[in-house]
């Protein structure tokens, strides 16, 4: 069968089981948009290419399948650079296809030419410039394999226009042959035994759980390990939902805005059992003072993460689910009675004491003007159905969402962790809803973030993707304002946005959404309930929140986690 390169590309995506492409056409990718008309693959036309990338990420975060985005060359390719960098940081599987000028024009500064493979080299797991149509099926198969195998991440295929028009003989490769890409998935048995021994000898262990647990589908294995050993669990920002918040062993989120118990349990621990986490600086605080007495067992599928930041006593390369399963077995096998002597009661009672004395809390009476953002999120969490997916932007609202939402399931939290990309929430929530149409999808967004990517609500209206946005309007780039208040003597520099410019309700309505404005606590629940009932279009609720509210606890930048500031509710911190 003779196909053009463009037809082969679409057919290859079909062979990969792709159900949806997020994209926007243009000159260099034009030939590829023609066969889309005849393909069963759904195409969602975005309003900005950054939206296409974040939608693909949101889709991937809730389905654990690679999201696919397709855009043209030059400015479109550079518009999708941010999502690539974001997906690379958060290990999100994504395949991006970019158009490129004809091979004969590459290097001549042709119209809409950009060195896309060069620009994206350090923010993709790998990228390919196709130079002959016969390579298309092979490269597509390789790209999906690389995006999903080992540590997941984004890949990019650059497709020159003449290659799209070139004829090729269709084939589909039976297997992918990449001699330089052979991820190790099985943990080394001897290391796993050593880890089991170290666990049994520990007195103050903590399961330090990162996003890798979600990517590898290891939640139920983790639950089994925690329940078997009674070891408490902290879930990082990327891992919220990997272990249920309602479980007695769940301590919640550690890190810069983590709760006191999660932060302090790690700090005082004698063994961090690190599962798919990477000792990010937002978790460790000042590294030299981080968990000074802890030994480290570190499990990751990416060997380069082991001992990159913190030296591991037992490094284990492998898929975290498979390693946890093997570890449970190894714990069973050891000498009889060992497990019986493993007594965490004093540690757990210490933890319970911290939890009682230093809970996450805020000023419920609501001094100050405007709604308490924490109250909005608590209410949202309690009024939405079990399994609701929550997306978030980046800023104070993201931290409040992570602190006050109840996370019970994996793949239900869609956020930008490593890169901290403002504007993630709206497009990512749309991608999530496309991936899981059966779930209710809410996004918590900031006014600053909303202004960066709100136009994708036009996409959502046009495509009838009923996402719901809780816009926490504090009239500020709030997180930056908080730093200026606390560390720059309240000298506010370029952080004021205004509460009513733009008029968010009018704007949302103009984009085809139902829009509500909520200013008093009594209106919060009814507005959420009203939004929950709308299923044929997007909804935006603008919550007017207290501009002065800050995120606590906080470990100031550069401080150790021992210097955690609890905030005014505990009589300290401003």
């Amino acid at each position, binding site marked *: 069968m003779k196909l053009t390169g463009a037809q082969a590309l679409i057919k290859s995506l079909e062979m990969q089981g792709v159900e949806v492409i997020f994209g926007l056409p243009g000159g260099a990718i034009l030939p590829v948009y023609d066969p889309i008309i005849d393909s069963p693959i759904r195409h969602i036309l975005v309003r900005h290419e950054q939206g296409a990338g974040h939608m693909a990420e949101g889709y991937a975060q809730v389905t654990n399948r690679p999201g696919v985005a397709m855009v043209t060359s030059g400015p479109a390719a550079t518009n999708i650079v941010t999502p690539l960098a974001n997906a690379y940081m958060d290990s999100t599987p994504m395949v991006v296809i970019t158009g490129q000028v004809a091979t004969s024009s*590459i*290097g001549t500064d042709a119209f809409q030419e950009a060195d896309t*493979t*060069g620009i994206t*080299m*350090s923010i993709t*797991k*790998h990228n390919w*410039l196709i*130079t002959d149509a016969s390579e298309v099926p092979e490269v597509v198969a390789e790209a999906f394999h*690389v995006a999903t*195998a*080992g*540590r997941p991440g984004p890949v990019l295929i650059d497709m020159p226009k003449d290659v799209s028009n070139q004829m090729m003989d269709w084939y589909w490769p039976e297997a992918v042959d*990449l*001699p*330089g*890409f*052979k*991820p*190790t998935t099985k943990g080394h048995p001897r290391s796993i035994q050593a880890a089991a021994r170290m666990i049994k000898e520990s007195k103050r262990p903590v399961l330090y759980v990162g996003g890798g647990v979600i990517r590898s589908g290891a939640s139920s294995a983790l639950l089994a390990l925690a329940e078997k050993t009674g070891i408490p669990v902290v879930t990082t920002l990327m891992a919220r939902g990997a272990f249920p918040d309602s479980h007695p062993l769940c301590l919640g989120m550690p890190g810069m805005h983590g709760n006191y118990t999660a932060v302090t349990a790690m700090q005082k621990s004698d063994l961090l059992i690190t599962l798919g986490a990477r000792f990010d600086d937002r978790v460790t605080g000042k590294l030299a003072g981080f968990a000074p007495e802890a030994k480290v067992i570190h499990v990751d*599928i*990416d*060997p*380069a993460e082991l*001992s*990159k930041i913190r030296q591991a006593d037992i490094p284990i*390369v492998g898929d975290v689910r498979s390693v946890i399963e093997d570890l449970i077995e190894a714990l069973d096998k050891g000498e009889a009675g060992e497990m019986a002597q493993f007594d965490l009661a004093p540690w757990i009672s210490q933890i319970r004491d911290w939890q009682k004395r230093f809970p996450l809390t805020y000023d419920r009476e609501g001094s100050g003007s405007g709604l308490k953002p924490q109250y909005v999120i608590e209410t949202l969490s309690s009024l939405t159905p079990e399994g609701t997916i929550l997306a978030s932007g980046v800023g104070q609202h993201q931290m409040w969402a992570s602190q006050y939402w109840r996370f019970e399931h994996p793949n239900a939290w869609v956020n930008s962790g490593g890169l901290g990309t403002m504007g993630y929430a709206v497009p990512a929530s749309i991608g999530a809803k496309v991936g899981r149409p059966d779930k209710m999808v809410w996004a918590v967004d900031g006014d600053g973030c909303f202004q960066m990517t709100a136009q994708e609500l036009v996409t959502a209206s046009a495509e009838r993707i009923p996402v719901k946005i809780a816009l926490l309007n504090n009239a500020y780039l709030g997180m930056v304002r908080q730093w200026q208040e606390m560390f720059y003597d309240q000298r506010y520099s370029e952080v004021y946005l205004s509460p009513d410019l733009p008029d968010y309700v009018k704007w949302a309505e103009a984009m085809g959404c139902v829009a509500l404005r909520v200013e008093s606590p009594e209106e919060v629940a009814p507005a959420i309930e009203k939004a929950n009932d709308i299923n044929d279009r997007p909804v935006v609720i603008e919550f007017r929140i207290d501009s002065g509210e800050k995120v606590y606890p906080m470990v100031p930048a550069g401080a150790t986690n021992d210097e955690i500031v609890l905030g005014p509710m505990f009589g300290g911190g401003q």
Partner: protein
Amino acid sequence: MTNVGPAVVPMSLPGGRSARGLSHHVLSVLVENRAGVLARVAQLFSRRGYNIYSLAVAPTDDERFSRLTVVVDLESTPLEQITKQLHKLINVIKITEIDPADAVEQELLLAVVAADVSSRGQILELAGIFGAKVLDVGLERLTLALADTPEKLDGFTELIKVFGLIEVQRSGRVALAKLNRGGGRGGVSRGKAS
């Protein structure tokens, strides 16, 4: 868009020093012979803040592969991080770490030396002692070539400097692990992982 062709690229990125101190280590990296591989390796070093002291690239006897010989400066980063990050490049097939103490190394030096009638004889004598070749002869200059260990090249340069060095060029180092007298070759090879 060209393949990694035969090239010998001497590089001195920030931090690279002329002294071949103990902080240098040689990585022999087998890569797929494909477009852009050299760029990927170079960008990885630059983005992660690793220092390349010198780099030599050439095809191997198997045309599917090229070999990069990278002399890395270990002051900034542990070798283990560098090799692990290199391994993450899809086009990297195999990395052999060669400790300079367990390696045979060669580097090429080309030098243009001022050589008038009075000094020419002495220069040729020195060249003879070191085994350098005369590549080109001008009225008042000689171009010499010497392939040897980096230390020998240093020594030779030191001596001919006295006569007036007009131009010097050195290639990056190429190295192989010393042969194990019991059979086989030394060096620590690392297989691939994700």
